[in-house]
């Protein structure tokens, strides 16, 4: 089984690090990171990705806008997107799913189970 290639878009570098370490050590996946929506889109266009972990609350271009942009672009629209959100549990989930996300993970997340959560959302294994 090929290892997965994940792009993580989050403006917090610490969180990027934690996620990256978790995904690589536990999941054995490859992780690319981007600090902003724009950077993320650029990355997505230039790499083959199995999934994108997308933070909701980002300055400038937030998660929702980023998702819309990714979905609007033919080269990136088929990449599954999983949101990471620090907002409270209840409401946003439906809205986020309605936008086309395939998963919502709440912060703080457990990096040791992050890969299995993502697999669960996307039906891997």
């Amino acid at each position, binding site marked *: 089984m090929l290892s997965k290639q994940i792009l993580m878009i989050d403006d*917090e570098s*610490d*969180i990027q*690090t*934690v*996620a990256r*370490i*978790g995904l690589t*050590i*536990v999941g054995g996946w490859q992780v690319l990171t981007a600090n902003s929506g724009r950077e993320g889109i650029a990355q997505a266009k230039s790499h083959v990705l199995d999934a994108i972990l997308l933070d909701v*609350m980002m300055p400038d271009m937030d998660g929702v806008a980023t998702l819309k942009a990714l979905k609007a672009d033919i080269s990136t629209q088929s990449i599954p997107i999983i949101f990471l959100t*620090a*907002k*409270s*549990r*209840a409401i946003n989930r439906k809205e986020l799913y309605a936008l086309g996300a395939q998963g919502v993970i709440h*912060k*703080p*997340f*457990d*990096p*040791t189970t992050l890969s299995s959560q993502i697999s669960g959302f996307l039906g891997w294994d």
Partner: protein
Amino acid sequence: MAFLPLLPKAPMSSDGASTSNTDSAVNLPSSSATDESAHEAILDTETLLNAAGSLIVVFDRQGKIKRFNRTCETTTGYIEKDVQGHCVWDFLLIPEDRVAMQGIFRQLMNGQTNTYYESTWLGKAGETHVIAWSNTVLTNRLGRVDFIVSSGIEVTQQRHSRRQLEGQYRQSHLLAEITQKVRQSLELEEILQTTVSEVQGLLGCDHVFILQAPPESSVRLAAEAITTLAQGPAQSLLRRPWPTNPLLQSDYVEHYRRQSVSVIDTMDGPGVAPEIVDILNQLAVKSELAVPILAHGHSDDGIKAGQKDGFWGLLIAHHCMQSRRWSPLEIDLMQQLANQIGVAINHAQLLEHLEDIVVERTAKLTETNQQLRREMDERLRTESALRRSEKQLRLVTNALPALVAYVDIRHRYRFNNYAYETWYDIPYQQIKGRQVSDIVSLEVYQQILPYLEQALMGESVTFESEMIQSSGQRLWASISYIPDIQDGQVKGLFSLVSDISDRKAAERMKDEFVSVVSHELRTPLTSVHGSLKLLSTGRLGTLNGQGRELIDIALKNTERLTRLINDVLDLERMSFGKVTLVPVACSVLDLLQSAADAMQPMADEYNIQLAIRPTEALSVWAAPDQVMQALTNLLSNAIKFSPEGSTVWMQARLPGKEPNKVDAHVEFLVKDVGRGVPSDKLETIFERFAQVDSSDARERGGTGLGLAICREIIQQHRGRIWVKSIHGQGSTFYFTLPQPTASPSAL
């Protein structure tokens, strides 16, 4: 009318002029032999004197009668010899005229001639003659009066007639006067008094009075006239105060009740009833004329038509000085007066009756009037009270910034307050009677229409809506419609619209704050927690025992922090109404099972059994996520505080008392055999950060907000939450949730 003369029965000529005898001729003295001497005899004084038809008397200077002619003789009954040498005032004149006569004589002696006067002579038989005299004095050469020749004509009859005529006239006049008075005046007392006074004067008797004999009470003196000239014992008796006055004794009156007119000329005569003789004698009455007065009877139920006249009383004239004859004229007058009095009495009674009726009617009218006035006052008071309360309503509602209105079933405004003017820029008085769709914009009308209709079906609604004011300004409004139900029918609705833009803005700010806070808190926490988690795997290098312990501690506390943040934010958002619960019909069994499933890992960790007691297939009207949250909180507590190996039970049921009541809530319970809750903390345990003792939170990892969140959730579902516990033996936490009902209502 016929009349009886009061003079002796001397033959009279019809014109009343007196004639000396039946003969029209006077025999000449027989001493003359031839016709010549007969003619000369004419000139003889004696013959002339005695031939004269008038009375001729010759007086000397002392007033003594020298000659007394034949006419005098036949008139008076005295012969010349009887009177010669006497003065006329000795016995010829009636006493009343004597002094006057002497005066006249003196005048004549002083030379005043041709005086004309009348005097009344007394005839031998005591009869009176009224004579009109004219006098001539005979003087000698020296002018001294030697003789007086008086020539007179008897005018008795004329005087009598005149007096009679006068009397008749007075009577007629009196009768006419009384009649007129009766017709005009309604004052019975006045009429009665006038009658007796006038009659008394007319008849010239001592005492005229009217007695009234009412049927059920004693005789009463109705009117009285007493001559002021009455002297002697009669007077004092008459003046005796009643009721001791013998006249008022009933036998006196009774005597006359059955009679018609009673005429007593003299007490000695026949026909004077013995029973009244005493009375009359007591009063020294010599003559009496009593006439009954007939009038309608007194009756309380008023005058009946055609009622027969009954005995009312008596009109009585008494003469006490002496007996007198009552002339037919006088008797007739009394009868006529009695009739008039009867009429007057009838009038008076009728009037009284009418007056009574008028009084009664007036009283009734007054009462009706007063009642009307009272009702009017009442109505005015009610109206003014209504107006006042309407005014107050306006004052109050106009002071409110919210829109207050009453809309009828046809969507027309029936009342609206002043605030409508500022919202819609229309003078607020112009809104009444207009349709809602006229006043609000089309968009808004479409928004509110379903709620309007819902309210007009009888259901209160409250909702929020964004509206545009006439100025273009957008605002958030909270709108409530409350149906007005009278006699089971919806007549309209009360509308309350308040501007909640501020609140919305505040909520939005709070919302943002909460978002920001949650994001800001969770972000670093993610890094800390994530890092520790990764370190604890051991894949990044192993730590010794103490090192691992420290990592564990750090991890545990970051997890606690996370939970705390979640709980705090949850609670704040819930209590500010930000979390809108969207209730659906949930299967109770599903809820219990899901909660059990979610908590199974934790139960396993603590070695606790989770069990669901037999539960009926019930449904509740609730937001499933929140109910889950509550259940899991309760289960978490139960697991934490239960001794190892024990069981935590869950159940849902309808409470025993009124299971069939329509709006009965379903009762959930979570039971454990843990350490329980002290009785003084059974209420406070649901408050934020309340712990049974201080060691709890740290040991068990709780945030202190779990039960507070449960309570908030349950209360938002309009349920109740409580705990029953015996300290040391365990606790059972209960909460209730509503069942789905036929008509939905917003929570």
